[in-house]
Structures are given as structure tokens and as C-alpha cells.
């Protein structure tokens, strides 16, 4: 095949619990250290040991962040999934496998080059302990791959040295295993393959980090002091990440005391209850959860909305409904979060597209919640939350201060300022609040989920109820102007078609737009970053004859919100939906939009019949 330098997909097929994650991570990082961008994704089961797991590394000098689709080099270490793994390789690709035991020719493909290395044999000759055999087998294949793909072994050694700093007893055998695999391949194969890496300087200052860690760091920088959570994949590492950052950044050096409190609650109901209690009492508080947790929090979310209590929820979305696909990704909680709870409720959603925005919007969410005195959802997903992404470094403006919103102080109360907890003083629908314990005789009030008047006095009067819920609506609507605005960009050529997306879809979107433009399909683009929608969202739809909305759920939930909240004619929107639990790929988006474009006559000047409703296309 043709030489393909710095542009290919390697997919590792492993068995969960075999220690492969560490070796695979070293593989990706060593390529990054060579200055070549990668996009890496773990595809793992809901299991601790024994089930199949995959790790996909896209080496991409162009710096694409999404999945491309397809596999060029398979590392087939799991006999259970062999057939599927082999079938997935693109023609002209490579199959790396353990050749210790002979396999029948039927297990191979004529159009794929097989690269057999007797890993088990090499390993067993070197190590006697069974766990060592398992772990070092991974490092041996890493050494073998470094030879095939021309990865600088010095970079892997440096990474190992960093990983085992001060633990020479562990470092040495790792280095030996690496050298063993590498030497075996160099002696027996023509190296490197045409498919290989070549040192570049394309990574720069970028960092490699997962969204859950980034969001947790955002919570630290956002001033959160109370976190309450219940373990649930894929959000657990967000709460654990907060604990990790806080130990480092929020512990008093002298006394060892902590400027934070984290409670692993008994369930999600208690998690959100604690967040609401803490926020009511003036602390910045959050929880991290996933779809099933959001379901359990519904009643409390209505209380927080109605009693106007700031709360931040990180929803790391996964395959749903029910237990669904706990270790797969989706964007399927939009409607559940936007209108969470019984009665008339609406909530603010923020949509980070990558770990960098998990940090930024994660920190911002606390300001938004305090300003609006309402729950704010940071809508992540497994793909952003649990995968390492190559992103620009985090930045922070040291002049920035927490915006605690309208909190009336003891001095203001003492000066005789009128306090009505639900009184719209400024015409923006946002009332003042007081924190418990502020003033001996002024500013106390009773918080309740039942109806009340502007001075927080219990009432069941219909006029007072309507007055209150109308104010809640004004407050919510007012936020659309200052919440994070959509990112828009025009196509290179004039077009009457546009595309809208949000969140992790952006990773594959950028590349798909590039490819579509190459095929003559030009689309103006908009990435939505917050709900309620900025006015420019409806304007964007109105300005285009056809608008594609690309999202990762079955029921076109962003489309539902667009139609419902912006009064948009549903016929104007063509949904492109991917929801099999794997992250959406460039190839999928390109194919779907290109097919629609042909049907709609985009790019050819022939539009579809006016008023006809385009079909909603779904991934098969």
C-alpha cells in the first residue's frame, strides 16, 4: 500500500482487566510526544474483568479530534472478538496478533497484511509469575508496535520513567519488556511499515486530558465547596477528580484542613438534596451524575426551580433509557434535563464541546446558577467525560471574581432595604436572596415548594401564583442574551443550507464539513452552547432553506427544543441522528448529509418541493 505517514487509525482489541489500558495510553502519549496529534477513545464494557474492550487511536497530523470511522491497523489481542475485529479492518490494512498458537488460514483476510508476533511465547520465556506475564505482554506488544510504526522508543522510555519515578524495581522490567518486543520485530520484519509516524511539531502547548477531570477542575475554579454524588458511570471520575484536585489545591498547608466538603451520598436523591441545602445556605455546590441519576432527582429539581436555589449538575450522558448502555455515549438527556420535574419547569443547559469547555463552562455554571438562582446543567457525555482529548491548555483570568448574584447583606438589611424574597426589584425577574444567619431580625424567610407571595408568605391565591411563575419565565428568558452564545461560521461559498450541532459531535463535525465542502456541499454552521437559545439560533434557521441538525440520540431532542422554543417549522429541519452508543464519526456525518443534500438538491440549485417534510434519517 501507499505510504501513509501520520494519518491512520489503530484499534486495540483487548480483554478488560488485562492491564492493557496502561500500555495503550503509553502508545498514544508517545506519539503525542513526537509532536503528532492523536484522537484516542476507550470503548469499554460495563465490567471489571473479562469482557472485550477496545482502544482506538487515530493518528492525525491534521489534528482532527473525532473518530474517522474504519481501522487501518488492528491489534487483535482478544480471541473472543477476533472475527469482528478482523472484519473491521479497511482493505490494505494490517492485523497484528499473537502468533504463539497457529491459527487456520480462514481466520485471515487476503487484503490485510498479517503481522504475527509470538507474544505469549516471548513473555513466558522471560517471566514466570502469571500476573507479570499478563502485564508485560502488553509492554512487549508496545515495543513491537514501536518498531512497526517507527515510534521513537526513547519517548516511551521517558514516559515509563515519569510513570515509575522513584520505583526503579518497576521501571527496569518495563524497559526490558519494551526492548524485547521491539528487537523481535526489528530482527524479523522490514521496518517500519508504510503506515508509520514521523516526528512533527504539531502538538505545541496542547494538553491531553479527559472531560471529567477538566470539569472537576472547573468546579474548583468556579469556587464550589460542597460536592455530593452517588457513583454512576460515566460520571464517577468527575466527583473523584474534584476530590483529587481539591486535595492538591484546597488543603490548608499548615493545618491540613480542607476548604471543601465531599459526600458520597446514599443515592442521587440525597446528592441533589445536599446540593440544594448547601446552595440555599450560601455555598457553591454541585453533583455529578448520568441519566438514571437525573431521573431520580426530578422532584428535587422542581423544588430548586420553584424555590429558586442555585445548583450545578454535571450530567455525563450515557446510552439510555433505563440502565441502557452504561459505558457507551449518547446525547439523549436533553429533554429530560431541559424540562426536568413535574409542572411547568425549564432549566438552563450548557453544552461543552470538549474538555476545555468542560473546564470553562464548568466554572461558569456556578456564576450562572448564582445569578439566576436556579439549577444549571452542564451537559457532557461519556465521549467527552471519559476520553482523553488533545486540547488547548486551560487558561484563567486572575482578575475574574465569583459572581454570587443578588445576595442581600447584613449591612443592606440593617440600612432598611426592603427585602422580599420573590420580589422583582430590577425588572429582570431575579429577586434578592439572603443566606441563613445574616441578620438578627431582618431578612429571614421561609423557603418552600408550595406557592407563596412576593414576600415568601404562603398563599394559594391564583393571582400570586401566576405572578410568581410569570416572573420565573422572565428570569429564564432574560438569560438567553448573556448565556454562552452559539459559535457561527459561514461556508466558504454562499449557500441556503446550514447545519447545527452541539457538544461532542463537534469533534467529527469539523472534519465532515471539510469533506462535504470538498464534495461540493457547502453549509453555514452553528454550534449551540446554551439553552435557552440565543436569539441568533432562530435567526440562523430562518436564514436557511434547509438546516441539518446533527445529534447523538434517536428522537432528535435538540430539534424538539428548537421547534418548541423557537417556533420553527419542523419541515425546515433535517435531522442527522447517530445513537448506537459509539461516538459519531466523520464518515457517518458526511455520508448522511451528502445523501440528504442529493435528495434536497443542495449544491445543484434544485431545491426540494417547498413545504414537503424531509424524512428524519437515523443511523442503522
Amino acid at each position, binding site marked *: 500500500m501507499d505510504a501513509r505517514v501520520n494519518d491512520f487509525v489503530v484499534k486495540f482489541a483487548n480483554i478488560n482487566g488485562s492491564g492493557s489500558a496502561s500500555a495503550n495510553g503509553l502508545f498514544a502519549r508517545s506519539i503525542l510526544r513526537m509532536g503528532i496529534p492523536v484522537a484516542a477513545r476507550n470503548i469499554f464494557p460495563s465490567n471489571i474483568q473479562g469482557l472485550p474492550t477496545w482502544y482506538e487511536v487515530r493518528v492525525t497530523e491534521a489534528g482532527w479530534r473525532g473518530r474517522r470511522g474504519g481501522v487501518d491497523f488492528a491489534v487483535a489481542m482478544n480471541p473472543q472478538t477476533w472475527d469482528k475485529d478482523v472484519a473491521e479492518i479497511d482493505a490494505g490494512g494490517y492485523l497484528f496478533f499473537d502468533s504463539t498458537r497457529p491459527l487456520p488460514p480462514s481466520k485471515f483476510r487476503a487484503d490485510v497484511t498479517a503481522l504475527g508476533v509470538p507474544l505469549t511465547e516471548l513473555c513466558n520465556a522471560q517471566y514466570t509469575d502469571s500476573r507479570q506475564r499478563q502485564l508485560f505482554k502488553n509492554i512487549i506488544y508496545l515495543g513491537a508496535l514501536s518498531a512497526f510504526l517507527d515510534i521513537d522508543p526513547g519517548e516511551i522510555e521517558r514516559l515509563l520513567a515519569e510513570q515509575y519515578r522513584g520505583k526503579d524495581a518497576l521501571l527496569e522490567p518495563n524497559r526490558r519488556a519494551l526492548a524485547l518486543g521491539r528487537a523481535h520485530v526489528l530482527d524479523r520484519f522490514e521496518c517500519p511499515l508504510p503506515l508509520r509516524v514521523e516526528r512533527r511539531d504539531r502538538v505545541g502547548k496542547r494538553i491531553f486530558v479527559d472531560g471529567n477531570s477538566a470539569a472537576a477542575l472547573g468546579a474548583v475554579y468556579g469556587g464550589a465547596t460542597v460536592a*455530593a454524588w452517588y457513583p454512576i458511570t460515566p460520571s464517577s471520575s468527575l466527583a473523584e477528580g474534584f476530590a483529587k484536585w481539591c486535595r492538591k489545591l484546597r488543603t490548608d498547608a499548615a493545618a491540613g*484542613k480542607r*476548604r471543601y466538603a465531599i459526600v458520597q451520598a446514599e*443515592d442521587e436523591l440525597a446528592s441533589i438534596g445536599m446540593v440544594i*441545602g448547601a*446552595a440555599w445556605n450560601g455555598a457553591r455546590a454541585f453533583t455529578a451524575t448520568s441519566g438514571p441519576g437525573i431521573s431520580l432527582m426530578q422532584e428535587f429539581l422542581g*423544588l430548586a426551580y420553584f424555590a429558586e436555589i442555585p445548583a450545578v449538575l454535571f450530567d455525563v450522558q450515557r446510552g439510555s433509557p433505563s440502565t441502557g448502555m452504561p459505558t457507551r455515549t449518547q446525547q439523549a438527556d436533553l429533554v429530560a434535563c431541559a424540562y426536568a420535574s413535574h409542572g411547568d419547569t425549564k432549566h438552563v443547559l450548557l453544552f461543552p464541546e470538549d474538555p476545555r469547555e468542560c473546564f470553562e463552562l464548568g466554572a461558569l455554571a456556578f456564576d450562572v446558577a448564582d445569578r439566576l438562582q436556579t439549577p444549571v446543567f452542564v451537559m457532557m457525555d461519556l465521549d467527552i467525560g471519559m476520553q482523553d482529548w488533545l486540547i488547548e491548555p*486551560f487558561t484563567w483570568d486572575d482578575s475574574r471574581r465569583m459572581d454570587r448574584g443578588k445576595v442581600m447583606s447584613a449591612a443592606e438589611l440593617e440600612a432598611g432595604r426592603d427585602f422580599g424574597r420573590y420580589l422583582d426589584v430590577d425588572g429582570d425577574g431575579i429577586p434578592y436572596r439572603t443566606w441563613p444567619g445574616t441578620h438578627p431580625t431582618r431578612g429571614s424567610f421561609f423557603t418552600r415548594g408550595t406557592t407563596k407571595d412576593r414576600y415568601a408568605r404562603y398563599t394559594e391565591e391564583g393571582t400570586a401564583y401566576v405572578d410568581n411563575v410569570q416572573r420565573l419565565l422572565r428570569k429564564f428568558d432574560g438569560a438567553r442574551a448573556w448565556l454562552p452564545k452559539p459559535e457561527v461560521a459561514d461556508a466558504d461559498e454562499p449557500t441556503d443550507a446550514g447545519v447545527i450541532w452541539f457538544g461532542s459531535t463537534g469533534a467529527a463535525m469539523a472534519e465532515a464539513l471539510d469533506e462535504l465542502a470538498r464534495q461540493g456541499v457547502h453549509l453555514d454552521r452553528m454550534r449551540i452552547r446554551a439553552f435557552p437559545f440565543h436569539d441568533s439560533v432562530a435567526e440562523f434557521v430562518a436564514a436557511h432553506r434547509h438546516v441539518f441538525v446533527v445529534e447523538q440520540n434517536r428522537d432528535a431532542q435538540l430539534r424538539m427544543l428548537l421547534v418548541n422554543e423557537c417556533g420553527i417549522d419542523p419541515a425546515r429541519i433535517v435531522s442527522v441522528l447517530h445513537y448506537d452508543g459509539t461516538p459519531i464519526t466523520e464518515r457517518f456525518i458526511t455520508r448522511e448529509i451528502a445523501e440528504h443534500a442529493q435528495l434536497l438538491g443542495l449544491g445543484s440549485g434544485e431545491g426540494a418541493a417547498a413545504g414537503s417534510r424531509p424524512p428524519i434519517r437515523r443511523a442503522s
Partner: protein
Amino acid sequence: MTYLAKPKLHHPALARNALGLTRRDYEGAISTLCAGCGHDSISAALIQACFELGIAPHRVAKLSGIGCSSKTPTYFLGNSHGFNSVHGRMPSVLTGAALANRDLIYIGVSGDGDSASIGLGQFAHALRRGVDMVYIVENNGVYGLTKGQFSATADKGSKSKRGAVNHDEPIDLVVLALALGASFVARSFSGDKAQLVPLLKAALCHKGAAFLDVVSPCVAFNNHPGSTKSYDYVREHNEAVNRLDFMPERDPIAVDLEPGSVRDVVLHDGGTLRLRKLDGDYDPSDRVRAMAYLEAHRAAGEVVTGLLYADPGARDLHEALETVAAPLNSLGDADLVPGSAALDAINASLR
């Protein structure tokens, strides 16, 4: 009528406490509960206890769930913030509030439906975490607001107002609280103010999770013959193990262990519980024996009241979490936001 303000006329001779406040300064809005409801007596006892202790009302936060009992925080301490939250979920909201500001006093008011049924899980976990609070269950054995259904604390064989017989085993929250690690456990009767007020004062001064089960008859739905939560039944079967005098002063008092007389327990803040023993065998520092005692007497149809267990050296949640002394809600940017230099170092570690 909670929207009707109480007249603020003070009798000039009303007694004043250490803060110069009168008992009236600890009142809340007028109760909307039924005349004769045991819950109003508990509110009155709370007013009395806070007044006598000289607690600044605004330094108390009152939290509750849903139900008749959970309405009562409106009826005491009108200058305190209150939070009438979600059915059965007061404990989590209180836990969060307590994490945000360790300097306030937290009173959680709940009922038997709120804590023994829908909220049993949160009841359990708040106690086992040692949240620094006074958790009061106003226990009448029925759902009042929904008109008289049995609750999970109703005794097996007891009769509803309409004549139905309860066939389920009752949940004894006091025994559960002991098993779950509450560090102060008491039971009292809303009709026995002389017992209840000192117990509340002691609980308010206790550091850690203090639980009080207060049998509080429902005059509308559970005060008839055949009920085991009626005024008459509780008066007849009240088996007090001790009488408590609470002395907040810090003067050490000699311990007298002579059976049938007095026992002093020094609290965390230096206050003293003086227990006049009514049952010479009862030892409120022995958690395991307390549970056996309670079970045996319950089987005999008795309602054991008094201070049942106290561990004055208990730790609370803030100690376990090693939080700073300053309330978390008082920390500002300088305390919380690490800044760009720290972020640069983090960036460097992620390459």
C-alpha cells in the same frame, strides 16, 4: 393562618434571657394545625428551650420535609431561616446546609411518615454520618394531611379511626437511631413538657447527630380508643427511665452513681446533663443494653421515654471531613480559586 402576623405586644414584665430577648422573640407565625395537636406543644417546647438557652434565633436554621409536622417550623423561631423541602428528604437538605455553614444550629423537623416511610433511607444516612443537628420526629402514627392512613410507626394491632386494624410491624425509630450510630437519642411525649424541654436543650447543645422521637397525638385521626399513639394511651403506658435537668453552665458537678439517684453527663461544650434515674438499672451510656431494654419494654406495650443514649465525645461530619474552621460559605476567591499560576502547572502535568 400563617399570613396573619401575631400581635407583637409584649407584657412589660416578661422574663428576658441572657440576650435580653423574651419568649415572644422565639415565636413564629400562628399555627394552622388542629386545636390540641401534639405538634404545637413540641413547637412551644422548642421555643422554651431556645429561649432558656439564650440562642440567637437567626443563628438557627429550621428544616423539614412534608406533612403536618413539617409545617411546624413556620410556627416557631420567626427570625430564623426555614426550609420546608421535599417529602422524606429533609435529612439530605439539612446535611448540605450544615456542610455550607458549620456555625449555625440545625433543627430538622420530620414526622413518622416523612422519616419512617418515604424518608427512611435519608433518616438512616444522616444519622450514621453524624451530621451536627437536632432531628425531631413528631410521631403520631398516622398521615394527618391525607386524612388518617396508618404510618410505619403505627403499632401492630392498633386501630384506625375508621376501625381498620394495622397488620404490619411498627418501625421503632429510636432503636434504629441507636443501631445507626446517632450519638444522642431520646424519646419523649408532647404532653410532657417538663420532660421534653430539658431533652431539647440537651440535644441543642450536643455536638453530633441528636435524635428525638416525640410521641405527638393526632387529635383528628389517632386519638381514639384502640390507638397506641393517643394522649390516654401514652399517659398510661409512659415508662420514663430518667428525668433530665440540663445545666448549660460549665461548672463541674460530681458524678453520683448511686442507683436510683443522679447521674451527670458532661457535654462537649461543658454543659451538664443531670439525670435523675427512675429505673436504677438504666444506663444511657450503654448503647447495646439500651436497645435490648427498649425492645423488651416495647413488647410489654410500654412507651419508654427519657434520655436513652448519649455519647458526649461524639464526632460530627465536619470533623470526619476535616473541613476548615471557617464556614465554607464564607470563603472567597482567594480561598477557593487557585489562579493562573497553579493552572499553568496543571497544564504542564498533562502533556
